[in-house]
């Protein structure tokens, strides 16, 4: 689909058709993002589908996904653009050998103008998103991993959709990208950045919603089994764990159960397969103790 969506319901249905079931506010904010052309800051615990939302949006809108994975120490050269200095060096050397006959000064001026042209510019994700002829979906993943200086650099891009390159001047966006920033909330982002974004808080989905998600990904799984699985995952999330299971992990678990051809989740099966959703040694103990025991008691009751 190429044109812009016209209603929230359309976005919700569209995202659903590409395999992402949005919550109430998710569809609304996605719609607003496309409509207002504002970046969206998506926050929430790990594994609730923040990155997945961007992927689904790009599939739904029929746009290319440009992804910038943030990490500590990410700088402009890796995010925006870089001069291809090897190529520049080559150009200078080539110019030097060619220019034997011509007067030295002319050669130098030509080279000087030449080596700071677009030919020698290495585009990094942000530049790619801005300069693309087709509209794209730009995903800036885990923005909280970078330092504040980098955030400040993003401000120009996010509010005006332009990048200033000292040697070339200003590069303005030819098309309007949909921008998603995700954050695990490991540090408070600056007010300035937040002010430029729409805000979406994604949390673990409620039982019915997660059941729908699991069923969407694995239509072959029995309804009753899926329900039990989601119920258990919810119980596990209630516990005090180092790493609560994400949505992707409940889908993985469902897939594992399907492969094993399980009919019902009993205590033994749970013990054998729970490493799919629980991935910490102490967590394993806690879960086995709390949830495993409950499963054993369940048939007796």
């Amino acid at each position, binding site marked *: 689909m190429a044109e812009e969506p016209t209603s929230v319901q359309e976005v919700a249905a569209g995202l659903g058709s590409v395999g992402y079931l949005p919550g109430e506010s998710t569809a*609304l904010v996605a719609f607003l993002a496309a409509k207002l052309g504002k970046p969206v*800051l998506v926050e929430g615990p790990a594994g609730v589908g923040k990155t997945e939302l961007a992927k689904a949006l790009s599939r739904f809108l029929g746009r290319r996904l440009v992804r910038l994975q943030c990490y500590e120490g990410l700088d402009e050269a890796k995010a925006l653009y870089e001069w291809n200095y090897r190529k520049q060096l080559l150009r200078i050397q080539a110019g030097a050998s060619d220019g034997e006959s011509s007067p030295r000064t002319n050669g130098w001026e030509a080279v000087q103008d030449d080596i700071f042209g677009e030919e020698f510019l290495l585009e990094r994700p942000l530049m790619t998103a801005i300069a693309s002829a087709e509209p794209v979906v730009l995903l800036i993943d885990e923005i909280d991993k970078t330092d504040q200086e980098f955030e400040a650099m993003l401000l120009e891009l996010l509010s005006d959709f332009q990048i200033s390159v000292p040697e070339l001047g200003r590069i303005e966006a030819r*098309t309007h990208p949909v921008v998603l920033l995700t954050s695990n*909330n490991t540090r408070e982002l600056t007010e300035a950045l937040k*002010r430029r974004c*729409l805000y979406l808080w994604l949390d673990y989905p409620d039982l019915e919603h997660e059941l729908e998600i699991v069923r969407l990904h694995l239509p072959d799984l029995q309804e009753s089994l899926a329900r039990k699985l989601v119920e258990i995952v919810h119980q596990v999330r209630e516990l*005090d764990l180092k790493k609560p299971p994400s949505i992707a992990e409940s889908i993985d678990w469902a897939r594992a159960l399907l492969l094993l051809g399980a009919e019902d989740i009993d205590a033994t099966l749970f013990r054998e397969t729970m490493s799919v959703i629980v991935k910490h040694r102490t967590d394993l103990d*806690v879960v086995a103790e709390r949830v495993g025991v409950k499963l054993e008691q369940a048939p007796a009751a």
Partner: protein
Amino acid sequence: MPPPQKPIYGTLPDKAPGSFDGELLAFTEDLRSEGVAVGTSEILDAFEALRHVGWFDSQDFRETLAATIAKSPDDRRVFDLVFERFFFRAAEAQAVRLEVSEPQARAGEGGEVDLDELRRQIAQALQDGAESELRDLARLAIAAFGKGDGSGVLGVDVQRIRRALGLRTEPQPELPPGDPRRNGMPREQLRQFEQQLRRELERALIERTAALPPKRPLSELDRALSGGPVQDLAAVHRVVAQLKRRLATQGHEVRGRKRHAHVDMRATMRASLQTGGVPVELKYRPKRPRRPEIFVLCDVSTSVTSASTFFLSVLHALHDTFRKLRSFVFIERISEVTGVFERERDFRAAAAAVSRDAGVADVSGYTDYGRVWTEFLEMIEDELHPRSTVIVLGDARTNGRPPREEVFAAIAAKAGRTFWLNPEPRLYWNYGDSVIAAYAQYCQAFECWRTDQLEEFVKALTKPAAV
């Protein structure tokens, strides 16, 4: 295609009360007064967004405003509370202005209501978590049990009706089996029901008096974590997990500004091979966050129990952020409990083990700070050095015993830094038998009874030592 330009000089919003724009502006004012920073650009965004989203669906309307205005989970919590309060009041004010009144529910709906049956139905609906029915049920309950005009104090009326309905969180085994109240009501459901009751009572009150009562500012408790800090340790841990990840970046950030990064010659030389031996790119040594060595002294007498369990649990969850952490508990005597907290992951069990084994209460069970300082200094004197940090958690209430601040001063002098966390609000400091001022001259004293205050403190803790 350039980004679509917003009309900058549009028409001024209509500020008259009751108009759409006016109400929305008043709402943002209200949010600001509760401490949510709402920028002008965000208000513009909200208006812009509302042009695209139907504002007649209350869910959409609310989410749209939230997406454009409330930009952190904390803000969102306040936003929801203020949203409820504001639009409830706005609707009521409008109703009073237009003299609309709700059809009276209490004018006997075709005879007597079966009170016992009503009790059972309400309990059942609460148990099932049928949210949409809550409001109707609250009205019925008021009609049936809220006789007369009430006491005039909403809280009292709410509790009176709740008691009349026999709704309790604890199990009531005397009830017949099959009664939904027998195993106790879910706490959260009950809280919601009480909220509905309060709203309906308030509505009725406004209708009777045809005036809005003064608005109640959000209390600190409303904003704080739901359920209170100690009731739900899993919630505490989630907060702590957050805190921990923040700390991981916090240390770096401060050090980055404060101290020069050192150039890593080896890595720089290696990188320069790519550019024919010209060191185009400088490589720096990674910065390591400060990992202080910490001694925690924690008062576990009854006056501060809840706060100390909370605090110890937080510190131990932060264990890997600190190089070395030793904890002590004290009442009249002092005792080391580092091992207990390392073994026990469940803090309820840990707290029980501490109170059982530590043997810190002698006779009276009242805190004796003077004695504790002396014992601590004897035990640990040789291990204190300028890079260690001592944290005391206590209310500094000596129960009339000598505070012995000179011993505390000796500890503070030996240690690099000394902090005092007081779980009492600053308002109560130095009242009664609190002698915090005597100790505060030797250390930095913080009040610490909310998670954000705790975060402030942990930030201070991981900052490089002050001069």
